[in-house]
Every structure is written in C-alpha cells, then in structure tokens.
C-alpha cells in the first residue's frame, strides 16, 4: 500500500514536471513565430483587439498581455505605424505595416519558408 502510494506520487510529480517542460518548450516555439504572424495580418489598418480575434480565429491565439505591448514595441522600432481613429464609439489605436515593416515582413516570410523546408526535411528524415 505504502509503495503504491509512493509510486503514484512519484508518477504524478514526474508527469507534472514533464507537462511543465513541454509547455515551456512549446511556448518558446510559438514565441518565434508571433512577430511574423502579427506582421502578416497588418497589411491594412487594424486595432489590437481586432487583430487578436483575427489571429485566434485563424488558429494562432496570442495572449493579450503579449500582443498589445508587442504592437507598441514594433511601432517604436519603426516596423509599424499607428493612428487614433474613432469609427463607432470610443477612439482606438490602429496599426499598419510601415515601409520598413513591409520589407521586414517579406524578409521574415522568406526566412520562415526556408526554415520550414529544412524542418520538413529533418522531420521526414527522422520518420524514415
């Protein structure tokens, strides 16, 4: 009985650690694509909440606490431009790619495609 309880506890502790590690690694993997995902959706003006909904509906949910500050940082780096608009109701800040942002988006897209091909080859090789 005691042994069973100890074994069960060890199993639970092990699976908890494993889950934490896998979640952390997956988060790191996703973090690498967030910027490109955001840039890809800002060819026309969008505001933060609308962008988050759009990314989420396309299968890439990004936490609000990550996305909204990221937009400001990209703007301060000259990748995005923004303006306040009040279409219906409260004014909202809309973001769009700047000229630099368009070039960066093209560059990152090419890198992403190259990387994707390499990864496909690597993963297929492992399976074969």
């Amino acid at each position, binding site marked *: 009985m005691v042994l069973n309880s100890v074994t069960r506890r060890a199993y639970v502790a092990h699976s908890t650690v494993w889950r934490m590690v896998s979640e952390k690694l997956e988060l790191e993997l996703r973090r690498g694509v967030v910027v490109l995902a955001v840039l890809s959706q800002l060819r026309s003006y969008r505001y933060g909440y609308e962008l988050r909904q759009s990314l989420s509906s396309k299968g890439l949910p990004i936490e609000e606490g990550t996305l909204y500050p*990221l937009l400001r940082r990209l703007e301060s780096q000259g990748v995005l431009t923004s303006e306040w608009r009040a279409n219906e109701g409260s004014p909202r800040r809309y973001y769009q790619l700047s000229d630099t942002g368009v070039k960066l988006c093209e560059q990152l897209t090419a890198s992403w495609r190259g990387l994707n091909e390499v990864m496909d080859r690597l993963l297929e090789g492992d399976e074969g």
Partner: protein
Amino acid sequence: MTAPELIDAYVADVARLLPRKDRADVSMELRELLRDELGDGSADEALELLRGFGRPAEVAARYGKPLTVIDQGDTRPFLRLSVVGVIVIWSLGLIEAIEAGSGAMMVLQVWYFKYVLQSFWWPGLLVVCFGIAGWVRRRWPSSAAWKPKPSRTDHVNRAGRIAAIVFFVAGTLVLVNASWLIKKVTSAPDAIAAFSFDEEFLRLRGPLVLALMVLAIVHFAMVTVQGRWSPFTRKLELVLDLAMGAVMTWVVFAGPVYQSPPSDRLVKFVLVLTVAGILIDLAIKARRKYASRAKAINLVS
C-alpha cells in the same frame, strides 16, 4: 469595485510604471483594449482577465525597452561572488568580534551590527561592477569577443620573477627591521611600539615564520634560475604552502605578534587573508591535478 473601476485602477498601476511621455497614450489604448476583451463581463471576470494579463510591473516592462542591470550570463558568477564574499566578511568579522568582545551575547551583538549589517556593501559593489561590465559589452561588443587563454606551460617569466624576488627580499628586510627603521625616522614611542614584535613571538614563532619566508624566496629563486617548473619544485611549493598555512594559523591563535594591539589585530587580519588565499590556491591546484589525471585515464581507456 465595478468592472470599469477595476480596469481603471489596473491601467493606472501600469501607467505609473511607464515613462512619463508614454503614460497617457498607453493608458488610453490599454483601457479600450481591456474593455473590448471584457465586453459585458462582471467584476469577477474583470479581475480574472486583469490577473491573466499580468502584474502591472511585468506589463509595464513588456511595453518598455527591456532594462538589464546584470546580464543573464553574469547572474551565476554574481551570485557566487556575492555569497562567497559575504561569508568571508561574516567569518572574519566573527573572529574579530570574538577577539574584541566578552560574553556570547556581546560577541553576537558586535558581530551583527558591525559586520553582518555592514557587509551588504559587497553585493552592492558587485551590482555596480557587473552593471558597468555589461554596459561596456553592449556598447562595444568587440571588447567582449572570446579570446583563447595563453596555453599553460612550465616556463616562467624570468624578468618579472627577478623583480618579484627584489620586492620579496626588500619586504622581508623591512618587516624584520621595522622598529629599527622607524627609530631612524622618529623617536615617538607609539610609532616604535606599533612596529615592535612581542618578546614571546620572537622566541619561536618569529624565527619559524622568517625561516619559511626565506625558504619560499629560495624556492622562488630556484624556479627563476631554472627558467621552468620541475616536478621537484612543484612538490616543494606544495610542502611550503602547507607549512606556511599551518604556521600562520598557529601564529594567529598562539598569542600577540606585535606589542601594540592595533598592529597585532591588523597583522592577524592579513595573516587570516593569506591563509585563506593559500587554501584557495591549494584547492584550485588539487582540482586541476584531479581533472588532468581524470583526462589522462579517459584517454588511456
């Protein structure tokens, strides 16, 4: 609090931590975004949303340019140096407090107020030093480029060692004849007493320390003349280090070295530091020897 009030309070907490020029703009945007996220949600839902968004300090940091005081790569050395430094200060302070105080409570009181509380200058100094080092690396990245260490050989730098021998001989002569030299300069009794050895020290401990110092200089000169280390001079160095460490420890605890208590305290403090240095040096050498032996065994097997 209602949901809008919670959002306002949260946004105010974030804004307080942002650069002044960004506060109004970010507050307005963040408030609208959080309202959009919450929709018609209740106060409880608002609280959950805001907690999920992150602590205001974290959110403010995400909005701003990340500020690093100590680089990630420096964190471990910083922690190690801080802890070792504080432990050394506390240990030396405890020895001083035991010598100065009478009674356990008095010793603890002196130790705590004079050494423990004041020891935190050391981590503070390290923060400044590591901060400056990190800033220099970011400002001039080429200065941080890796450089290979010169390979360890048994050869020695003769010119440097000859200069060191002159310094050691002169230092030993000054140390042995300090009171005689002071008498030549001044006749003040305090100054003379400050550099006069204790009679008891001069009977056995003094000559023994002097003999070891002379032997150390002779050993140093031998290596210099040969121009390289040999297995014999390495072994002799180890024996001398052990003997010097043991005799110095004995001198610290056996009785006064100088007639004047302040001079005595100072020289014992220096001796404790020297013994600590010898022990660290021996530990590094032992580790190096163990590592090279393990490497040789691995190569053979």
